[in-house]
């Protein structure tokens, strides 16, 4: 275990190592940091039980996120927010699931659920206060989901299928969480040092230091970190810093009944994930893919990465996330150049004026 007292003072903006660099904890100044720890969430075995959401709230004392029926399949959480640090997305897709015979093959089916069928039925219904076919958008998290990066609009996830008759069907489930990026934009922009890199390579908010400025909220490429409406501070997954420091498994992974959420040293998890994706492809899941595992991606790889069964956008994930502070050095360089040029011009003008 690294001794936090040996941690040298390091300005927050220097904590993001270059892509592919060594362990982020070491880069943040930790001496003898333990192996980087993370999550591998294998969505192919997720059964959508939401035990992770409940365990997280119980352990971390996270308040309720509202009693709203969102109508987004079985997702009534909506998104990762200050009050939901795990979020299970449910995607209903009228598309082949790799079954020998489609789930609904041979049944008398029409159009998939969606704007078209809802609109068709709207003509015959009594007024019920709900516009047909449109995501209700009243509960804030639902509204937020539609605005979300990469999120196809105008319908719940996966509901925007073609108008062809549905014959096969699949229901994807995925437990989303803070990605604990190698290059964490939130951490880069935090002016108070409330966000810090732990010895395990994770990114944690210190609630007593956060001043609620909200810079990190716009800096997160995944839309994870969020301010709590009542106290203004930001809250997100800590990867159960208090548990893992004591050698325990984070609450969500501990509660997961199917080992969809796996916790461990990131190197080990990456190996396991590569083997799993190979197995799934062999078994006829050509779309099985890893997300956030690559140290060379726009955030230097995620500490919490995923095995997905479809493109990231389907789950509401950005396909090519970039650390929002990526261009800061160049911008500062340009700004510096511009400042120099202006200074030079001013000096020149001043000097010239003397002539």
């Amino acid at each position, binding site marked *: 275990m690294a001794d936090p007292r040996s941690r040298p003072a390091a300005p927050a903006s220097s904590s993001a190592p270059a892509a592919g660099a060594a362990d982020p904890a070491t880069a943040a100044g930790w001496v003898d940091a333990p192996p980087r720890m993370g999550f591998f969430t294998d969505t192919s*075995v997720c*059964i*959508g*039980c*939401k*035990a992770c*959401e*409940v365990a997280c*709230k*119980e352990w971390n004392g996270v308040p*309720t*996120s*509202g*009693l*709203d*029926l969102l*109508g987004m*399949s*079985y997702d*009534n*959480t909506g998104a990762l927010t200050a009050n939901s640090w795990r979020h299970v997305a449910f995607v*209903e897709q*009228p598309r082949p699931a790799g*079954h*020998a*015979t489609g*789930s*609904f*093959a*041979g*049944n*008398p*089916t*029409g*159009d*998939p*659920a*969606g704007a078209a*069928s*809802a609109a*068709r*039925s709207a003509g*015959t*219904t*009594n007024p*019920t*206060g*709900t516009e*047909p*076919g449109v995501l*209700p958008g009243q509960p804030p998290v639902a509204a937020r989901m539609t605005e979300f990066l990469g999120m196809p609009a105008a319908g719940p996830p996966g509901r925007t299928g073609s108008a062809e008759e*549905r014959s096969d*069907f*699949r*229901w*994807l*489930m995925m437990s989303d969480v803070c990605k604990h990026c190698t290059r964490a934009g939130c951490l880069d922009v935090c002016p108070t040092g409330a966000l810090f890199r732990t010895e395990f390579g994770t990114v944690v908010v210190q609630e007593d230091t956060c001043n609620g400025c909200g810079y990190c909220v716009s800096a997160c490429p995944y839309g994870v970190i969020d301010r709590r409406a009542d106290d203004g501070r930001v809250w997100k997954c800590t990867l159960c810093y208090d548990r893992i420091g004591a050698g325990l498994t984070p609450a969500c992974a501990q509660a997961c*009944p*199917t*080992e969809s959420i796996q916790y461990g040293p990131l190197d080990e998890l990456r190996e396991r994930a590569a083997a799993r994706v190979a197995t799934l492809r062999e078994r006829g899941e050509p779309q099985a893919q890893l997300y956030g595992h690559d140290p060379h991606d726009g955030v230097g790889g995620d500490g919490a990465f995923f095995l997905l069964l479809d493109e990231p956008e389907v789950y509401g994930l950005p396909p090519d996330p970039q650390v929002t502070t990526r261009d800061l050095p160049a911008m500062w360089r340009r700004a510096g150049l511009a400042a120099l040029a202006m200074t030079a011009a001013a000096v020149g003008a001043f000097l010239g004026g003397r002539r």
Partner: protein
Amino acid sequence: MANADVIVIQGSNMAEAHPVGFQWVMEAKRRGAKVFHVDPRFTRTSAVADAYLPIRAGTDIALLGAVVNHILSNELDFREYVLAYTNAATIVSDDFVDAEDADGIFSGFDPATASYVQDSWQYAGHERDSGSGHTGEERETAAGLRHESHGAPVARQVRRDETLQHPRCVYQILKRHFARYTPEMVERVCGVPREKFLELARAWTENSGRERTGCLIYSVGWTQHTVGVQYIRTGAIIQLLLGNVGRPGGGVMALRGHASIQGSTDIPTLFNLLPGYLPMPHHARHPDFDAWVDSIRHPSQKGFWGGARAYAASLLKAYWGDAATPENDFCYGRLPRLTGDHGTYQQVLNMIDGKVKGYFLLGQNPAVGSAHGRAQRLGMANLDWLVVRDLFMIESATFWQRGPEVATGEIVPEQCATEVFFLPAASHVEKEGTFTQTQRLLQWREKAVDPPGDARSELWFFYHLGRRIREKLAGSTLPRDRALLDLTWNYPTHGRHAEPDAEAVLREINGYDTTSGRPLSAFTEARDDGTTAIGCWIYTGVYADGVNQAARRRPGHEQDWVAAEWGWAWPANRRLLYNRASADPQGHPWSERKRYVWWDADAGRWTGRDVPDFEVTKPPSYRPPEGATGPAALAGDDPFIMQSDGKGWLYAPSGVLDGPLPTHYEPAESPVRNPLYGQQANPTRKMYSHPVNSTNPSPPQQHDQVFPYVFTVSRLTEHHTAGGMSRTVAPLAELQPEMFVEVSPELAALAGLTHLGWAHLISARAAIEARVLVTDRLVPLSVDGRVIHQLWLPYHFGFEGLVTGDSANDLLGITLDPNVLIQESKIGTCDVRPGRRPTGTALRELVQDYRSRAGIVPGVLPPAVTPGVPVDPPRSTGDGEGNP
């Protein structure tokens, strides 16, 4: 389960209702098993299955029967296993007439009582000397339940045809019975396209045999039907034909409703059973101890129920201690007696009629969780007193004040005479004890924290209630009070609240030697001379050597995969029942891959990975001598040791009240005419003629189109049963915050329902409202040329808690399975309309309008036998004891 090569899940949404156990399905899948899910709607279980088959609710026997037909007509059965271990070769009486030949009714039907006289179902030559005779009375007491742990009686010597060619052998009868259950019929009845059916049938048969095994999983999606027991029998027939019983990765897995429901049948909270499946005595049939015991052990018969006298005597000894002696029949006279149907639904109707004065509710919320919620609430509103012990203020405690009947004016709080005592209960982490789960595994749990405030454990409540009653009765000389005053009631207590010691109770359940106090280690030590006291004989061994074996928690990585040192399984810590069948008749494993228990000829004993479910030194070659009874009458290749012939029953000559073979009947409420038989529904189903109860008409009755849609109710993973433990807890309540109904886009268009709009559903009992979830997960089915729409509702909602909504169970009527008196609550018919339901008296008017349009007259039952179906009265009605 993890060892299965194919897993068929039907009548169960295992991933949602049993997510922890489901890890073993996922493990099997990881190892390459194919998982099939058959269900009326696409659920979270379907989402991870390899194939999903949408089925019309209530038609599972048609589909399973077609699997039987597929096996038999293609000779895909595991012949060696079938011949040696099942009753396939046994010859059945000439008197037997199959339902196939009589439009859906078997021989022996007595129209006067709508029940069977089973004489003609018996094995040839045993028409008079075995079986139950007339079964009308058995239905009243759900006598079939006692067969949960053993088969029904059959006389010892049976005629067999080892070639399976005799036209009246079970194999041939089975073949004829299911001959019309074809893939085409599956398509017509179930709405499952034949190609999909064949995919299932092929996978099941190809993954069974010597080298491979398949596992069948069901839960209350099968049991809660008027033919529920026969659903399970059909599954068991398939598993026996394929050799999938008693072997690793095989079996028929009954997933229980929630934690320790298995425990509450082993040590029952049922009206008709005593601990260890000993039947509750009947006032007329069992006048004395010997009559009672002989009705269990059936003198002169094979099998381990031969020891019933010792189990029964030891139970009474545990109840009444020193007062119970062989001379006074162990105080048998003090046991309560059955006089008829005392089941939960009969009780509720009796409450409405003013025949019941008081009611204890523990861990149950019938105002939400039981069928026909209005009848439940009206019944509870007509008591003198009601005790509710729960964690939260549940609907069954507040119905008189806030229930739907208050809004309609049917219950007036100021006038409701029921005095309700609400007592806070300790939760499972606030008390110690055991859970018995699906695998019969007892697991001890420690108390983690003290219960808050006045909350107390059940053990505390009943111990101190008994103590106080006994104090009040002390000194009484009335004979009727002896039953209470002589009870063994001396459990040690500890702590501030005098909490009884749960381990002391477990020790009593395990049993002990009454002279030395030594805990017994096996039920074979039970004696009928008063020297042993056993609270539940099948649990003997859980406290062997004075050690709480249920508390063992040796980690899995420190032992083999059977993990015999994790908890304790009844009986005798055996993890897999009937595991003698995992070896061939000669005692060798069927294959290396499925090696489990086998005969070690050198050591002269059975050995293997598990505790052998067989007398350990009885060789495979053992043949019983003439006239042997009890265990000694079981041959060395009779693996089904609790059965009276040692065989797995493909055909049940007795023990099942509604037929020796499963037959497809439509549910009590169905929009479809039975395509297979003139007989529409189970002719022996239990119906209650009461003004509060009614059944929606089904064809060929008139007006069935008043309720054109099929609804089914079940659970969400986010909530727990009637919601008392989940709608009250914010992190759970917010995950499914409102009552909703799932409909297909097609039905939404047809009925004018919009996503997230309101709908209300109407049956002859109630009208309830719900938000609409339009989803592709429900699909209309093509059934016999018609399109059938099915709706789905969660049954978790009620009017108390953080999140509230109308209760789905209010829609249901009361019609029961004849064998175990379970209600048909997995299917009903209804109408659905957009918008919210009316309130106040207008709500009852709406329901009344539907009732009059459907021609429903209060208290008038639909006919048990469908008009036009010929009924031959039985040749012999017997005397109720199987005697001519």
